[in-house]
């Protein structure tokens, strides 16, 4: 049940929206880069191993 935010609804909802949006983007980008870098390193290590 949504609380009655009265005349400050925009300020409150925008604060939560902007903040949670930024946090989701930050977490998403961090996880995506972690996966990409981990896969790249695994590829390089595999190539070096196979080349002796």
């Amino acid at each position, binding site marked *: 049940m949504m609380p*009655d935010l*009265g005349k*400050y609804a925009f*300020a409150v909802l*925008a604060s939560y929206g902007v903040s949670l949006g930024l946090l989701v983007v930050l977490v998403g980008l*961090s996880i995506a880069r*972690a996966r990409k*870098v*981990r896969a*790249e390193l695994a590829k390089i290590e595999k190539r070096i191993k196979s080349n002796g």
Partner: protein
Amino acid sequence: MSIWEYANPVKFIRTTDIVLPWISAAAVLCLVTGLVWGFFFTPDDYRQGSTVKIFYIHVPAAMMAINAWAMMLVASLVWIIRRHHVSALAARAAAPVGATFTVIALATGALWGQPMWGTWWAWDPRLTSFLVLFLFYLGYMALWSAIENDDTAADLTSILCLVGSVFAILSRYAVLFWNQGLHQGASLSLDAEENVSDVYWYPALVCIAGFVLLFVALVFLRTQTEIRARRSRALLARERRA
């Protein structure tokens, strides 16, 4: 057992791999609990109305914006004194997280300030020092990206971090140094008389714990990434030389 064991990248990755899921889960639990509690189950303030709900995001984000820089300062000092690569990479990993917290503090401050002060922005000491802190974050990240040699980048960004610490301290204590600004004094205090009422304090405490845990989880994850990226660069360089 010594803390310097974790200066070994392999040991750092192995240990953080074990604790990361637990810290991440605790961060999500605290953030969801604190924000839901604060947003849905706390009363409006008699002066600020429902805008008091912004408190649960604004205060933890502002605290962590400053504390992230403090952590970067410690890591930079460790790099300068002991030359541990993991500490330099941890400082690098923390910068985007701290910058995001600074943006959140600035944005929610503006959204809160407009209905309360009648303006989105004022050149108030705390607001201005926070903006300068954000610019330092941007400069710090840009400097890391601009220099190809990792050790040189770590040296220069560590110096920048030391200089920027002045503004991190100013951001924290500006309301005590100058009292002509719009920004109120500290909302949270160990003195029960000065601290906010318990009805706001407890959910805020859970939110602060959530932001701290999220910061730790992200720094661990991003430091692992920086370590792996550095190893990839080293292997590629070795391969080119061979």
